[in-house]
């Protein structure tokens, strides 16, 4: 039985996230941070102009990065390292598209720890497994690799009660990738409609959020947002498995609180969705959504 001994030889390789943070190394390009304390000087203006996807802008005298567009190319960080820098953190999925617009460095360690513990509680509180239907709506292929990685022994999402399903009829979460090609609009919509309520849609990666480097065109809708109503956005090009896991866990929270919301919404932006109330049995984690926290951090 050589394969069995092979299986035991590595010991435990599974990450402890979300119970414990799992560092990826300080040089990993998990996300782009903007230094909030700095004005908009020449170099910053130049960096904003050179961004390949138009992810940077100035709002109320402050630099804002739209993580739904940022492909993490690092150009701005090279041109103006005092304002822009990479950070290895990965838990930047948001509920609603507008929360991906980030000013300043809102993500301190405390926020991250708070999100993590909240998410761990959510998976427990749901007391059942969650099923995901993946649909590729025009990805570059890398997103599928990172989603498939979630079943490898390091991430092993089965241990969190998360499974992939071939049938939309058994799916709670629609995990969509890609720029939203015109060819995939109907199959994506059909899959969404075949899913039972409550259902939650994750747009995985900047391609799904905005079209990324491909953008809108004759064959691309510049994201999947006008085909299915998106609840959770996962930034990244592609998102890392940790980033995806974070997005999925946010979605699990929505699955768990969907009973409070009444509707599952309509096509279009979801920043305006009714928020779960603090009275929900899941406690503080559902009282404030992380997207709100990010906005609060700017104030």
């Amino acid at each position: 039985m050589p394969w069995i001994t092979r299986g035991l030889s590595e010991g435990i390789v599974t990450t402890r996230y979300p119970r414990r943070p799992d560092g990826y190394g300080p040089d990993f390009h998990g996300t782009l941070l903007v230094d909030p304390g700095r004005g908009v000087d020449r170099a910053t203006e130049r960096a904003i102009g050179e961004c390949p996807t138009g992810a940077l802008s100035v709002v109320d005298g402050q630099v804002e990065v739209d993580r739904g567009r940022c492909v993490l190319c690092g150009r701005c960080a090279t041109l103006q390292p005092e304002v822009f820098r990479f950070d290895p953190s990965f838990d930047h999925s948001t509920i609603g598209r507008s929360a991906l617009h980030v000013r300043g460095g809102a993500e301190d360690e405390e926020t991250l720890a708070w999100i993590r513990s909240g998410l761990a509680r959510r998976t427990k509180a749901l007391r059942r497994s969650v099923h995901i239907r993946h649909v590729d709506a025009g990805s570059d292929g890398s997103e599928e690799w990172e989603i498939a990685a979630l079943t490898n022994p390091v991430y092993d999402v089965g241990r969190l009660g998360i499974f992939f399903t071939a049938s939309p009829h058994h799916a709670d979460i629609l995990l969509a990738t890609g720029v939203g090609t015109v060819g995939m609009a109907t199959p994506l919509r059909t899959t969404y409609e075949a899913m039972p309520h409550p259902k939650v849609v994750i747009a995985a990666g900047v391609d799904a959020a905005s079209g990324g480097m491909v953008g809108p065109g004759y064959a691309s809708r510049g994201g999947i947002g006008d085909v299915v109503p998106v609840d959770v956005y996962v930034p990244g090009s592609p998102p890392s498995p940790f980033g995806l896991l974070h997005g999925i866990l946010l979605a699990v929270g929505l699955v768990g609180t969907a009973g409070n919301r009444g509707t599952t919404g309509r096509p279009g932006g979801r920043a305006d969705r009714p928020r779960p109330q603090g009275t929900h049995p899941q406690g503080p984690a559902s009282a404030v959504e992380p997207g709100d926290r990010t906005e609060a951090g700017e104030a």
Partner: protein
Amino acid sequence: MVSALEDDAFADNAFPAAVADRVEHGARFVGLFATSAPGGTRILAVLARGHAIEQEALLLPAGRTRYPGLAQRVPAAEWYERAILDLHGLEPTGRSRPDPLVFPLRSGAGWPRPTAGGPPRPTDPDPPSPPPSLQGEGVFTIPYGPVRSGVFEAVEYLVETPGEDIPHLRTRVFYKHRGIEKRFEDMSIDDGVLLAERYEGVASVAHAMAFCGAVERVAGVEIPPAAGAVRVVHAELERIANHLDSTVRHVEGAGQAVAFARFSLHKERVMRLRGQLSGSRFGRGVIVPGGVSGAPGLGGAELLQAVDRLEKAIRADCRLLLATPSFVDRLRGTGVVSPELAARYTLVGPVGRASGQHEDVRVSRPYAAYGHLGQPLAEPRSDGDALTRLHVRFDEMWGSFHLLRQAADDLDRTEADRTEADRTGRGTGSPWRNAVGPVSGEALGWAEAPQGEVAYLVELHEGSLVHARVRSASFHNLAAFALAFPHDILTDFAFIEASFGLSIAGASG
């Protein structure tokens, strides 16, 4: 040679004859591209002979939409002609009108036509799916996809069962056509490389290298030696990751749970090593026009250690897998691509190499640092079944490790030289990147992706892109995929698909 079509008498077969003549005399068909040209459209056939590139061009006057087709005499051109009809509305003569391949919209309105000018605009309404090709009594068509069961890229397979005959498989990749070639127009070269990385995302490094190779050829710029070594490191890690991914798909299809866990763990470790080296698990942002973006995140010595550890673990599991009879028996004799078929379609990459097509542009037209690194000669193979393709992938991984070790040594020496130069104050310029000016011109670039040769035809005007045409190995090899199913389509499907290792994004553009 350039042939021009003067009038409507396109019985003029000079163009196909010239291309066929080159093929008959030993040139290998690389690709067929349509681009705008003064006064009309140019159809360009690119061929390779040893280390040299050859071209044949045909100028179509504006308004002409038919041209003498190549596919009758050069079968490998068939799918290129289909793509050119879909995207440019140019129809080859000498054959029946081909099925849609990358974009099914056939009405003139809203035709994307790269090079037609103007910004890309949305097509509306959604293009309808064309009907299956076989119709008639007793014909069953079973569609699979485009939403697959499991985490796969979107693609539709139609299994057509015409009565008593052998079922026929059709592959429809157009669902995820993104219109990338059109998007390249007017981009800066720095943006262009970011888009190239996303043409076929699992082969980002190879695409970026082929794109940059074309740009550097236009500019007449050589990359610094250290940049060549870094490019090799990332390209070979990308190859190992892809071959491990294919292996994972194989063992998943065979229900080998422990092997699945092992090989997906190896792949994850390779992805993390790539992440440590570049900050991106796909090596994105590393390759830039003129070199690489900077020093790798690990020194040569650390890299060497990581590579040794990986190789040891992967070799042991590959050995065990090939000694697992229940697994090997599923692959032996499955999905055979005969050497004749491989030659007919000039198949590339591991698919070609398992069937006697040994072309590898790392050897025949070396780029990056491949020219001065010792490249291991893999055992020639031609049995052409899924097992042989897996053997080829394993051979290639050992070759990649061999190259990685040499490149890591090179980097180690560069670090030493660099320290010495800094100490003596003789260090000049960047060791990683040479400047590329606002140049104009057209050139071809290439790289050996894990799937096989990828080629970029790039035209620049004062440093920005006029057009880019992409030939991915996934597209090139797709022609043979349906032909590898001689008997039972369904039982062997997972293995044949895994053993081809094609990227649908790369095939559909």
